[in-house]
Every structure is written in C-alpha cells, then in structure tokens.
C-alpha cells in the first residue's frame, strides 16, 4: 500500500522535477543534460513574445482576481443573511461553477459572448453618431477577464463563506450593541476578521487565472497569455526555454498557494 502511494507520487512529480531540472540544462536539447546553466532563463526574459504573453497573463490574473475577490466577498456576505431554499439553490450553483470543467466554461462563454456581440454590434453601430467609427465588441482581454472572474468568484465565495461561518455571530451583535451601524460593524469587525480569507481567495484566484489554459484558449480572441504561448511553441518541440517558463510559473504558483494556505490557517486560529 505504501509502495503504491510512493509510485503514485513519483508518477505525479517526476515529470515536474524533470522540467525544473532541464530548465537549468546548458545544452540545446531537451532530452540530454549537458551541464548547469541559467542561460535559458536569460533567454526567456529577453524574448519579447514571452514578455508580452507574461504581461497579458499578469494583467488578466490581477484584474480577474481583484474583481473575483471583490464580488465574491460581497456575495458571501450577502448570502449570510439568506436562509431556506434560495440559499440551497445558490450554494448548489456556486459549487457547480467550481466543478464544471474548464472546457465547458470556455465553450459556453465563447458561444454566449459571440452571440451577444453579434446581436449588439449592429445595434451599437446604428445608434452611434454619424462620422465616428462605432466601437465593435470582440473577444479579447475583456472577455478573458470576464470568464475568469466568473468562475474565480465562486471560489472566493466558498473560501470567504467558510470563514464567515466560523465567525462568532456574537461579535457582530456585540458591535451593533455598542452603537456601530451595520456599515460600521462590517468595516470594523467583519472585514478585519475575514480579511485573511479574502487575501487567500485573491492569491488562489490569481494562481488559477495565471495558470489557466483551457478557458483562455477559447475566449482570449487574439490575445496570447503565457499558457497559450507555451502551448503554441510546444508544437514546435519542447525547448529548454519552455522548461524555464514552466519552472518559473510553478515557483510563483507554489509560493502563492503556500501563502494562501498560511493565511487561512493563521486567520482561523485567531478567531477561536
């Protein structure tokens, strides 16, 4: 049984280890170790295509994580006050949003947005004043951020709500008993108590968005995110450069995940 577990973990982590190892390969080939070097990292950082893709990815990840944290927290706080079948329905929909495969979200968002855009674009053109060029809605950064925000929001709702549920109701009552308005209570008591969870939700969302390929592939339009860049260059063969990108993404993701986990744990202890 233990051997079996070890095998499973080896199977999972050896390829990742290999990628990290080969990113430091001095040689050209991805299959042959020829000494230690960090030159591929230098090459990655000076590649304008990679840098462009990275910028797109960071912008999308930051914006969608920020929006998801904001709206997710608002939804979680509002859901606290709702009971009964409506609550059950919301809970179900939120879990579904997290569980739905990325490819379904990707396709659905693509079809949905394209349909809406096709309906709206002539309308906008019709009401636009003469002489100016009417803006055209199209797939791109906006649709990418929207799609990511949508499914990340569900994630933030789940994380923040777990924290809210663990919070003693007497605390908000005490605040209101001590003359704080509902807004005052939210700002002075609820928000500081759930802030670690919001931050953790933000970091997780950032990581998920940054790493996402499937949804981005469908809705990015002409934009290229880092995962999309990696995917398209892999078709021309795996280079140590790709390994270096992969390793960097892995490192950033791991740091964020660990930070989020620490935030959730530490925050949980303090409420007790």
């Amino acid at each position, binding site marked *: 049984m233990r051997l079996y577990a070890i095998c499973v973990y080896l199977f999972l982590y050896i390829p990742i280890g290999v990628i990290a190892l080969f990113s430091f390969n001095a040689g050209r080939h991805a299959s042959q170790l020829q000494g230690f070097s960090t030159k591929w990292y230098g090459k990655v950082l000076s590649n304008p295509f990679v840098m462009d893709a990275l910028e797109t990815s960071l912008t999308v990840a930051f914006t969608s994580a920020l929006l998801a944290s904001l709206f997710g927290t608002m939804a979680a706080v509002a859901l606290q006050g709702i009971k009964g079948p409506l609550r059950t329905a919301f809970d179900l929909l939120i879990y579904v949003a997290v569980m739905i495969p990325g490819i379904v979200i990707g396709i659905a968002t693509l079809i949905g947005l394209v349909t809406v855009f096709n309906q709206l674009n002539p309308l906008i053109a019709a009401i636009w004043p003469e002489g100016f060029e009417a803006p055209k809605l199209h797939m791109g950064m906006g649709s990418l951020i929207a799609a990511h925000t949508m499914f990340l929001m569900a994630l933030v709702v789940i994380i923040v709500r777990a924290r809210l549920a663990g919070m*003693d109701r*007497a*605390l908000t*009552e*005490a*605040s*209101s*008993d*001590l*003359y*704080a*308005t*509902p807004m*005052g*209570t939210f700002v*002075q*008591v609820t928000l*500081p*108590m759930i802030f670690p969870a919001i931050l953790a939700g933000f970091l997780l969302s950032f990581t998920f968005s940054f790493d996402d390929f499937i949804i981005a592939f469908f809705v990015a339009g002409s934009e290229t995110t880092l995962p999309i860049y990696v995917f398209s260059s892999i078709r021309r063969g795996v280079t140590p450069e790709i390994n270096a990108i992969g390793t960097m993404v892995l490192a950033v993701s791991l740091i964020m995940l660990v930070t989020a986990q620490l935030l959730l744990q530490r925050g949980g202890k*303090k*409420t007790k």
Partner: protein
Amino acid sequence: MEIRGYIGDASPVNNMVIAELRGVSKRFGDVLAASDLNLSIAEGEFLSFLGPSGCGKTTALRILAGFEVPTEGEVLLDGEVVNDLDAHHRPVNMVFQQYALFPHMTVAQNIGYGLRQRRPRLPKAQIAEKVSKALDVVQLSGFDDRKVWEMSGGQQQRVALARAIINEPKLLLLDEPMAALDRKLRKEMQIELQNLQRQLGITFVLVTHDQEEALSMSDRICVMKDGRIVQIGSPQELYDQPNSRYVAGFVGTSNFFDGKVTEQSGALISVLLSNGLSMQGKPVGKVETDQEVCISVRPEQINLSRNTDGLSVIVQNRIFLGEHTEYLVRHETLGEFLVLSPRQSEPDNGPFKAGDTLFASWEASAALVLDNT
C-alpha cells in the same frame, strides 16, 4: 382565582421605571419562545431572569437589547416604545456569554469601541481618559495594550464589563456571564458585580440558570418556564412564598407531597395526600376544594427528635455539611424526604445515625399548599 393567578408584583416597589415589557411575545416559526411577558424594571435595580435552558430568559434579554423584535406587545425604555429601535440605537449594553471580545483589537480598543461610534466624534484624549477610568473600575489598569486572547477567562469578563459600562447604559444586560468561569472565580465575580452595580447605579438585568447566583445578587428575580414568567419577587419572597411547585423546586430545595384539598378551615387547609395520609398546610394563593395540589416543606423547617410526637421515620443516610447535617429519612407511607438540621439542635449524645428510628415534625404554617405544576 386559582393559585396560578398569583405571579407576584410585576412592578418594582419604588423608584422610577426605566424599562418595561408589556404583553411581549416572541415566536420563532412554530416555537413560542416568550409568551405574554409583563414586567417593569426600576432604575438602579438588579433583576434576574431565572430558569432552565429553553425557558425564554435569553429571548427576553435579547428583546431588551434589540436583537429580537417582539412578535406581539411593547418594549418601553424610559417611557418610550422602542420595538422598532435597532440595537445600535438603543442606550443599552450587553455582556455576552462568551464575552464576544473583538480578537483583532487590544483591550483598550475593545473598551473604547462604543465611544468611538459616537457621532459627532469624541476627542481621542477624552476616549483615552474614559477607557483608563473604566479599566480602573474593573481593576485592569495597565492592561491597555494586551491582546484579548492573551487574557484569562476572568480578565476577559472584566474587559467585557468595562466595554459595556463605559457607555453608561440605561440597562446593562448580562447573559449568563459566569457560565464560563470556575466556581471560585464565580463567587468573587458575584460579589464584584454587586459592588459595581451599587457603585455605578446602573440597572443590571441578568440571565442565569444558577439559582444560587440569582439569589445572592438580585434585588428581584423573575422565574421563567416555557416562555412564561411564573413568579416575580425578591429572593426571600420566592423562597418563602413560592406560587407553585416549580418555583419551590427551582429556588432552593423542598420536599413535595401530592394530594387533594379536602377542607379549608381558617388560615389552614387540609389536604388528603395521594397515599392516604391527611396533612395541614398554609395556602400561598387561593385554592378550591378538590383541587390537585402539593404540599411543600423545606428541609430546614423539619425538626427531628427522639420524642414520640410527629411522623415516625427511619434515617436512611446522613451527610455532614459543617454547620448543618442533611438527613435522608423514610416514612412508611410518605416515602423518603430530606431534613436539614442545624448543628446546635443535635441531641447531647451526638448526631443521629443511619438506621435510627426518629420522629419528624413541622409547624403547619411551614407546610405550603402549592399549585401542582
């Protein structure tokens, strides 16, 4: 009028009425948590709601605090109906059962919380001065910058108290404040709370299931059962003149004998007990012939002796309590009951022993005829 009608005086003896419940009921779905509560609270008094869990005492407190809106009836504060006044507008403060201190604030920040909500804002220096005075009152000077979770249970409770009294509320509500403390600390805090109440002159309303706590601290006690007020009175009134078996059993201990009223002769009533014996007792309210009642005799009212007057009993068990000795005795038809004998009433040849045959007697006026609920 049956005995049940006698609830006691719902209004305080003197002083100005500061808060009032008029026919207040609270329904949660199908559950009637509080039913037709009528009560006046006098300025400066110490009132307790006493009852087992689920009797509605906490609901009553939460209605006063403004956390629950009554389904029926009116809540008055200083003569004004405040049913629709939110908790954060009510000049009332609460000490919560688990204290509900804000874990992300220091002790001083917790205590000053209420003052910081005032609009227009109070000057910082004034808040700081009041906080340090409040810390002084609860004997926590110098603890300003401590984290609340670094403090012991007793200290946390003092912080919770300071956080409430600093606002000089019209009512200070205490929700089982001693429940989380150990026995010794509880005794100390009881005395401190009483002193604090006299010193500040703030009206205290306490909720507790601990009769000893209620008896030792309160000016008046409001005994509750199933969402209703069963009896209101001073601790002594409740002890000496309980209006029902429930109150007699909840406030102090008592021996109960079930029976039916057979005859009313002057101040005393004859009761035919269900085991065939006949007994006399003093009614607390009015009773009717044939009514099902019970006779309550406090253990300390019963006299044990080797003389041959009274009921013949056999000592089953003896517990030495220091100044008192508690005997569990058994009568052929009455069954077992408790007797509490003071030390000085012991016979010259030492206390009674298990197995001794003795005679138990009491004054007819010490046997109370009570409604059997």
